């Protein structure tokens, strides 16, 4: 039956080419959306884990260090560091500002004491060592040695990383704790959380310790509606893909009703006829998926948002493409199986 399916693909090639191109566009969009979703999902744990903390100490009532505006004296960290279960306690400032690049971009500010947390993931340059220095995400378009204006201050870029993002892909600017305090607060040595390496046995009054999972869950709450929207759009895109390929396969099956009747009348087994349709649908779907890889790559070049197209994304898309191929072949198969072979007799 592959002979018939292959020749039919060639015979009706214009229709199939249009269907494959449109489906490739749909698959490509779905792939990009999946990449965006993965990026949003991954940036949260990546950011939290960057600090190498086991616990996050924040004022009571605060749901997480990245979403709070509550502040406290930075020297609270010193008391926590004295706890025997704590190896390191680093006061941090986690706020937001505007990076004055062209065009201006909202950025996450992270202020920390250099050397108090593991080195951030830097692709080029080094980590911050002193005041006036910054490490930035590459999406700001800056290079080592460039100046970056944040608020009323100018910083020298000493390092660039490619995964320094959170809050739905917003770039992060890493500064010394002092610089971050100066930018965020009018005065005072304040902090917004203490990243603790170890497990404190007791905490100062009015403070609570959150686990990494608590912090991740808190940050995920912000991105959840966005991720759900992406999931919904992805499902709609898969349905559109099923609709496109399904309508072409069904139209094809309608036109080939007499062929099916003849094949059945001449003893071709149902499994061969259905197998031929399944091969045809799968072929269309998989070719569209292959083209979608290129479409997704092109779209991701102009997308103002990071899309993490991993091998898992591609594997998922091909799995969905196969499912789409099989589901759509059922549409044609039903038509083929219900065709009465007696239809082959009589005038056309």
């Amino acid at each position, binding site marked *: *039956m592959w*002979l*018939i399916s292959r*020749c*039919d693909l*060639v*015979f*009706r090639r214009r229709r199939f080419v249009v269907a494959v191109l449109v489906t490739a566009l749909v698959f490509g969009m779905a792939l990009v959306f999946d990449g965006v979703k993965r990026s949003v999902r991954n940036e949260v744990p990546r950011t939290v884990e960057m600090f190498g903390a086991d616990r996050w100490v924040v004022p009571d009532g605060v749901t997480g260090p990245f979403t709070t505006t509550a502040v406290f004296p930075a020297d609270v960290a010193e008391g926590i560091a004295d706890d025997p279960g704590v190896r390191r306690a680093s006061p941090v400032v986690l706020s937001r500002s505007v990076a004055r690049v062209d065009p201006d971009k909202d950025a996450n500010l992270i202020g920390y004491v250099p050397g108090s947390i593991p080195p951030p993931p830097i692709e080029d340059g080094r980590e911050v060592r002193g005041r006036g220095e910054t490490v930035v995400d590459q999406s700001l378009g800056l290079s080592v040695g460039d100046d970056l204006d944040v608020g009323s201050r100018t910083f020298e870029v000493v390092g660039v990383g490619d995964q320094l993002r959170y809050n739905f892909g917003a770039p992060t600017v890493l500064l010394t704790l002092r610089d971050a305090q100066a930018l965020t607060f009018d005065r005072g040595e304040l902090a917004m959380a203490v990243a603790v390496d170890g497990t404190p046995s007791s905490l100062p009054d009015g403070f609570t310790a959150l686990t990494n999972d608590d912090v991740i869950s808190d940050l995920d709450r912000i991105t959840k509606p966005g991720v759900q929207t992406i999931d919904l759009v992805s499902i709609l895109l898969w349905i559109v893909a099923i609709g496109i390929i399904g309508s072409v396969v069904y139209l094809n099956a309608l036109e080939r009703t*007499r*062929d099916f*009747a*003849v*094949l059945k*009348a*001449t*003893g*071709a*087994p149902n499994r*061969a006829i259905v197998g031929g349709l399944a091969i045809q649908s799968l072929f269309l779907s998989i070719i569209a998926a292959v083209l979608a890889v290129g479409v997704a790559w092109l779209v991701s070049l102009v997308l103002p948002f990071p899309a993490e197209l991993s091998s898992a994304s591609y594997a998922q898309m091909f799995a969905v493409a196969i499912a789409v191929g099989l589901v759509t072949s059922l549409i044609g198969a039903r038509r083929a199986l219900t065709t009465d*072979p*007696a239809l*082959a*007799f*009589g*005038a*056309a």
Partner: protein
Amino acid sequence: MTRVEIRDLTIEYSSGGYAVRPIDHLDLTFDDGQLVLLLGASGSGKTTLLSALASILRPTSGSIRIGTTEVTELRGQELAEYRRHTVGIVFQAFNLIPSLTARDNVVASLRSAGVKTRAARARAEELLEQVDLGDRMRHRPGDLSGGQQQRVAIARALALDPPLVVADEPTAHLDYIQVDGVLRLLRDLAQPGRVVVVSTHDERLLPLADQVVELTPRAVAGSRPPEQRTLAAGEVLFHQGDHGDLVYVVDEGCIDIVRECTDGREELLARIDQPGYFGELAPMFGLRRSATARAGATSATVTGYTLRDFREHHDADTTALLDDAGDANPAP
């Protein structure tokens, strides 16, 4: 040796809710090597009989035996094997797969029977050479004339060298030049080890046939004495699906014309009183009776006339209606 025996075959199906019985208690025998022609008007059951021979249509009752195989008992895999290996079908509308070349149309049949690709191609080329299409193997059906397409269809039917070939109106879509080649081919197919059954309206095939089966009995052209019948209340004069060559005039009582439905119900179409007439369409057009006629609530007397006698012996008004195929009465 291939011998086809059809015994007491009846095929009934539903059409628009009404029971249609194009084949009614048919007995036929086709001997090995014969070219058999099935002649008859449209609706006389030619294609229905071919469908039953090809085991595409299951008869209501009766037997079709080809060699030692009882066709009506085949099911599942045996049925598929029968369709593949025992019967080759030539369709009226050629029914070639438009996306395949002439050669691949034949190859597809062989491949679906499990023949290896290389052997299938060699066999297809051999058959297409036989039907004089050696130079058209790579043409698609759309690039072939009707006669050429029908020859490809014949090659396809012969792909697995079946002992029975059935051809449904094989010359219906061909002009007189194309018909010649197809006729010679059909004649050549009928040889020891094979029976060829062809349904046709085309009387040019008659001289080629070893056996002609007329599924529509020829109407009585001349005259014969009128047949008067007295029917008891409810007694049937003729059944829906019967052949008939008489037009009936009601002499006394009344006749109910009823149509039998598939679900067993009956639909009263008309009640004919004296001096009405009924039953003219079957003899006029060689059709089977399209309804049942029986006496009404009381006994009735009718007289049956041949068409010619009916026209001669009845008044001008009545026969004018008949000549116009008028709808004064339903005319089974």
